[in-house]
Every structure is written in structure tokens, then in C-alpha cells.
């Protein structure tokens, strides 16, 4: 019975062309809020080319493996993870605060598994919810990696560790 259910599940996956197999899905980055804070930025209006995709306050975090590479300026090893935590802008008189989470974008390094997308797995968790994956297909993941090719020389990552 269990085997039959698994077979059914896998065949239904196979029916969606280009969908990412479960084994290749990027894991939710549990505990990332306590990882190294790399840098932050606010994208607040359409004069910025990334406003429609990434408008808000964002913080970038790196896990221990990724932090080691950022500090040493060395290539990222398998298991390196970077998280882009996008929050709404809460306006206060004369300032800005952090609002609720828009999404959590994740880059997960595995040179072999993600060879087709420059060695990184790409995922976006809507509202930061582990069950709301926005990147369903390889084509969607390629849209991420295509833009990141711009920083191919830096390991396909935009963020530098701030002082």
C-alpha cells in the first residue's frame, strides 16, 4: 500500500513537466535568524530596478559554512546557505521599522545536485512559510540563477559581509 502510494506520488510528479523532484527541493533554513547577519538594505520605490521583485527591508544571513567562505573570500562549499529575508517597510514618523515577512529566499550550495543552476539550489518561501514554496520548476530556478550570473565571479552571490 505504502509503496503504491509512493509510486502514485512520484508518477504524479512526473506528469508535471520540469517540476523539481522532492529530493532536490531546497530545505527550509531552520534557525536562520541566529545565523551570521551579512548585510541589510531597503528598496523603497520603483526608481530601483529590483523594486517590484524585492521592495522592502531585507536582511541577508549566512550559515556557518557560507560565513567561512565570505570571510576568507574562498569558493562556497557544499552545504553553504544564504538567506534573503524580505520584510515589509513599517513607516513611522521620520523613520522606518520592520513590518511582516514578504518572503524568505534561499540559496543552497550543492555543486553536483544543482549543476544546472550554477551549483546553487534556489527557493522562495512565501511569507516565510516552510509550506509555501514559490519555485516549483527548474525553469523558475533558472530565472533566479540567470540574474545571479551577473555576480558569477563572486560565487553567484551579491552580498558581501559588512564590517
Amino acid at each position, binding site marked *: 500500500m505504502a509503496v503504491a502510494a509512493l509510486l502514485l506520488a512520484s508518477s504524479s510528479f512526473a506528469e508535471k513537466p520540469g517540476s523539481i523532484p522532492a529530493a532536490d527541493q531546497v530545505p527550509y533554513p531552520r534557525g536562520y*535568524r*541566529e545565523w*551570521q*547577519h551579512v*548585510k*541589510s*538594505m*531597503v*528598496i*523603497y*520605490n*520603483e*526608481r*530601483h530596478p529590483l*523594486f517590484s521583485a524585492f521592495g522592502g*527591508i531585507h*536582511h541577508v544571513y549566512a550559515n556557518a559554512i557560507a560565513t567561512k567562505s565570505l570571510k576568507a573570500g574562498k569558493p562556497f562549499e557544499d552545504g553553504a546557505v544564504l538567506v534573503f529575508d524580505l520584510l515589509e517597510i513599517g513607516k*513611522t*514618523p*521620520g*523613520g*522606518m*521599522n*520592520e513590518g*511582516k*515577512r514578504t518572503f524568505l529566499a534561499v540559496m543552497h550550495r550543492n555543486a553536483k545536485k544543482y549543476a544546472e543552476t550554477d551549483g546553487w539550489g534556489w527557493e522562495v518561501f512565501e511569507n*516565510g512559510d516552510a509550506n509555501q514554496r514559490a519555485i516549483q520548476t527548474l525553469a523558475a530556478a533558472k530565472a533566479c540563477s540567470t540574474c545571479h550570473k551577473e555576480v558569477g565571479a563572486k560565487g553567484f552571490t551579491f552580498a558581501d559581509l*559588512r*564590517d
Partner: protein
Amino acid sequence: MSRTSTNPSPVALFLLCALLLGGLANAQDAAQVPFPKGFREWTRVKSALVLDEKHPLFKVFSGFTHIYANPKALAALKSNGPFENGAAFVLDVLEVSDSSGAISEGPRKQLAVMVRDTERYKATGGWGFQTFQNGKKEKPRIKTVADAKACLDCHQQRANQRLIFSELSQ
């Protein structure tokens, strides 16, 4: 007999002086807070931007600010329990660099520190206060207990939140 009791020996005088000087040094020490070495690896608690004079903190804390907590401070935030001695918070205040619809982090303006020690900082609510100009260890701006009390005065409005403004953001 009377000779020994009325004329203190040079050794005794030296010890007395050393004790007095030591006492003075301790009094000064009370306002001092160690530089928060390694704070960039602590947990980011929350962030805020203070951009113009409409914000009540503009004069003191304008900029792009991140608050970090060391492991002891983080444990107390999470459990809502008391802050142990050694718990520390850092306000990392950076310049605002505003261009083309985005605000980036600029150079460091100041690094404000609160560190918990109920004995050492008894005069200021059990917290030591310091701020390092441009994040430079050799540029502390809080020189006296009176300076530290000015910090505390403002933090008193959070007396019911253990004198702390930040809560761990989501």
C-alpha cells in the same frame, strides 16, 4: 611599644596608599563598559531607520540601526527571563546611504552598548552604558556616571520591559 604604634612603617604607608588608589580606580571603573568584541557574530534582534527630525530619536540615534544580542541576552529575550550578568546588547548605528530608490548601509556612526552587571552598574539600574564613536574602541563617549545616567533616564520609560527597548523581531 609606643614607638611601633605611633610611627607606621613605610611598608604600611605604601599599602595604605595602594588601597586608597585602588578604591579610586574602582569608582572610575564603574562607568566603564568593555568594547563588544565580536558583536557582528551575535544575533541580530531587530533593525530600524531613523531618517529625519520627525523621529524623536533623530538627534541621538539617526541612521540605519541594527541591534545585536550576545548569547546571554538572547536567552533572556527568548525566555522572557531575567538578564544574567554578562548579557549585552549592541546598537550598531550606520550612516544612511540613499540613492536610486534604495537605502544602503554606510560607514559606522556609533556603537552603543548595554551590558548587564547588577553589582558593577548598580548606580544605573544594573546596566552599564557606553557608546563608541564610529565604532572605535578608543573613542568611548560616556566618561562619567552622570553620562551613563542620561542613558538610563531615557531607558526608564521601559521600566516594565526590564529597561530594554528591543524585542526579538520575527
